[in-house]
């Protein structure tokens, strides 16, 4: 998972596999941070108050 | 579901909602304060206990049966290999047995209190001294001294540190959960180490093997 794992080797297998994994994790975490950041912005600006 | 039912059903819930929101508004400001305060307090307590209390709890300190003065013996007997020697089949004798010590210590030598304890409790009773070995690796590890000392011409200090110059034995710290000695698992809980003998985990061996032989080596090289 991380370069300080015992099994870590800078070879094709690790690049593809963990490259894909970290790429996916980054997308998910970016997506979530964007959502939360936007939510904070909306809540502070008092947007969500009305109950539709 | 008829109109009526729906209205009453809505009606009842609305009132409930109304009630809830009023409360929130009433103590709006202080409520947040209490929450945050508790947050910080809990955070601080856990943070400090995690960093300070936990390491001490995790490691138990044990004293050696009696003190052993390495410096004195090195001076008297010569290098490490006078007591820690290789057998002719290549295996390593490790910590000397009572039989070796008795060659000189048949009766009390010198006036230290530890000498008295050693002769009384162990030499006379012919009981092996239950030394707590700082650099004892777990059962799954096969470490070949001959490969390192003879094969790679390494000196003892790089793995055992300056124990040869010590006059007193430091307390033996053992991880309560795993049973590993602190010399194996490392002083610094975060894993930084100044000199090579501060920690002797798998990664440390692998690091040196990588440097010297170009690869971490196959599993069975160090496992049994």
């Amino acid at each position: 998972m991380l370069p300080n794992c015992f099994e870590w080797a800078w070879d094709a297998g690790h690049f593809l596999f963990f490259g894909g994994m970290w790429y996916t994790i980054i997308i998910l975490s970016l997506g979530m941070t964007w959502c939360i950041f936007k939510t904070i912005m909306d809540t502070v600006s008092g947007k969500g108050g009305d109950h539709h | 579901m008829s109109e009526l039912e729906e209205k009453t059903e809505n009606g009842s819930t609305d009132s409930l909602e109304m009630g809830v929101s009023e409360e929130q508004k009433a103590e709006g400001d202080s409520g947040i304060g209490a929450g945050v305060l508790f947050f910080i307090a809990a955070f601080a307590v856990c943070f400090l206990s995690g960093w300070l209390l936990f390491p001490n709890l995790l490691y138990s300190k044990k004293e050696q049966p009696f003190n052993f003065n390495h410096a004195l013996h090195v001076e008297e007997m010569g290098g490490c290999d006078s007591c820690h020697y290789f057998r002719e089949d290549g295996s390593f004798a490790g910590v000397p047995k009572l039989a070796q010590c008795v060659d000189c210590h048949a009766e009390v030598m010198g006036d230290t209190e530890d000498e008295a304890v050693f002769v009384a409790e162990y030499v006379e009773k012919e009981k092996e001294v239950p030394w707590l070995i700082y650099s004892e690796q777990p059962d799954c590890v096969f470490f070949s001294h001959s490969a390192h000392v003879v094969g790679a011409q390494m000196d003892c200090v790089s793995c055992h540190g300056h124990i040869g110059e010590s006059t007193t034995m430091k307390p033996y710290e053992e991880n309560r959960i795993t049973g590993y000695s602190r010399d194996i698992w490392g002083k610094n809980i975060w894993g930084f180490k100044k000199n090579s003998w501060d920690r002797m985990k798998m990664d440390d061996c692998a690091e040196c093997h990588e440097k010297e032989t170009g690869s971490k080596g196959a599993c069975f090289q160090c496992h049994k």
Partner: protein
Amino acid sequence: MKVDRRSFLGLGLGAAAGVAVTPATWKLMDDSSIWTQNWPWTPVPPDGEVTFEDTVCTLCSGNCGISVRKINGRPVKIEGTTGHPVNDGGVCLHGISALQYLYDPSRVKSPMIKTDDTWKEVSWEKALAHAAEALGNIRKADNANAIACITDNDKGTVSGLFKRLTTVLGSNNYYTMDTMEKAWATTIDAVNGVKAHVGFDLKNSDLILSFGSGFIEGWGAPVYNFQVNARRKTHGIKLIQVEPRLSNTAAAADKWVPAKPGTEADLALAICGVLITKGLYNKKAIQADDPSFKAFAKMAQEKYSPARTARTTGIDVASIQNLAMAFADAEKPVAIAGRGKGDSAGSTREFAAVYALNCLAGNINAPGGFWLMDKDPAEVWPSIEMDAMATQGFARAKFVETDTVDSLMAKVTASAKSPVEALLVYNANPCYSLKNAKAVTEAVKKIPFVISFSSYMDETTQLADVVLPSHMFLERREDVSLTGPVPLDITALTRPMVSPLFDTRHPGDSVLSLAAAMEGSVAASFPWESYDACLEAVKAPVWKALSEKGSVVKEPVSLVKKIERMDFSLLLNDTAVVAAEGDEATYPLVLMPVDNIRLTGEIAASPFAVKTVSDKVLKGTDSFIEINPETADQLRLSQGDEVTLTTPVGSAIVKVNLFDGIMPGVLAMAHGLGHTMAENPYVGGKGVNVNALVGPVMDAISGLDAAWGIRAKISRV
């Protein structure tokens, strides 16, 4: 400030965030998995200096040389001693698992006395006093001859001590268990009138004609034979196996001759007949004009002509001719007999027939042939002192003329009150290994006082009144003389590999201390203060070599040259024919006990050995019987069915195992299961003891047990 829901939420989140930032969680996760790598209940064997020490394994008559690997004096592995004349580095599976016998859970840990059916651990003094008192009362009642003693064989100093004790107590009832070596000795005595120890020089032979012997299944010295078998391809040694079932030996043999069970002797005599008619026998060895030979020749050619023998053995005439021609053409042929491992004696007629075959081939005392060895035990025993009770008892007649425990037990069963009032048992387990084991167990129960010297709580010891537990062979220094049919004369010395684990004694010391407890002339006849002293004194002639080198190998082996007569008259009449007990009508099938290298006869097998046993021989606690698929179809049985196996002697519930290699109409069952040892769950209570289903058949000539099987029937459960 009001504590409400939100503050609790804050508290929780704060704590979680706090802990997450410290190394605690990750450390605990890491340490918990390392904890699973070092569970306190997973043993950590201490390391140390590796040393090797040699000794001799005494689990069977092969006496292989073994070297024990020790770590700081703690034995961890048994390996073969390279260069040892018998086994040269190889060891059988039982020898390798000897350490499991050392730490066997059914070891007797201290002397015990049984009072109204419950064992009580006592001190050595108390146990010896109790035994001495009982023996003393019998002697005082002027019935000294009622004391009997059973040991495995009469070789070596410890058996000598037991024999001496029995004699000095005033009884001539000293018996040894039946083995193939005893049957051969009586045959040679009957035919040649000489006392000799039989040996087969198989390594130098070029044709081995085996009549039912488990040549590579534990017969004689098992590892010696394995190595002979391994040389067959390179040294051109042919092996022909005569057996109704495809055993491991038959499968490895160059030719398997599936003769009907119990007809091996007929086939041997038929081959003799063919050799004689074709004049292909060694004329020098046999005086053709000798009247007894002429009678034997006439009988062999007529009574056992190939045509008639074909009917009795089921082997066609051509095959019999070929066998004879093969035996004649071979330069150094040898014929061997002794069923399976040779644990039980066997019929003298069969041994005589095979011996006749060897005589015709003229290979007696020849390289690669049949050796009559003269083994001088090199023991020096001081004289004994007999008091009045002893001399009077000793004068009385022995309970059973022939030296066989079967007849002794039969005599005890027959008489209302047991003639034997006290029984000493050492290195033998009659209640398990004698045929018709249940009857033997009842007989031993009738004996008022039984003293067992066993190291294990085996079937016989469970019935004893006093147990004087012996060291296990890895804890003893003792002389061992090679008894197996191997062309070697070796006396070896076993060395203690570990200091005794329990409150046990060397059996020699037990005899000495028992004699001392009896005081009087009995004590006087044992002038040594310990067994080690006795060993040194008795083996004085060879002690120096024995103690230094660990073994004395007599090179060359001294052979019995002077043979008075070659008289095969015992084969002329049919009295010695051994048939299977039970009538054919009620018992249509024949049950044969089969010796399996992976199981042991005398003592129970080790947990490792039982683990190697196939699940077609033992499954859970059920034994299997091998049956030919044809016979199984006739009885509408399929693999794994549960059936009741009934023989004239007993019955048991077993499972069916279809095996093409067994002759239709014949059943086979492994020997060595059915031990009843509660403390040892690894072997106790597993399977059926085949000895409980097969009855003894007394041999007309030797009186030993010559049973090779029994008639049986099976019915669905």
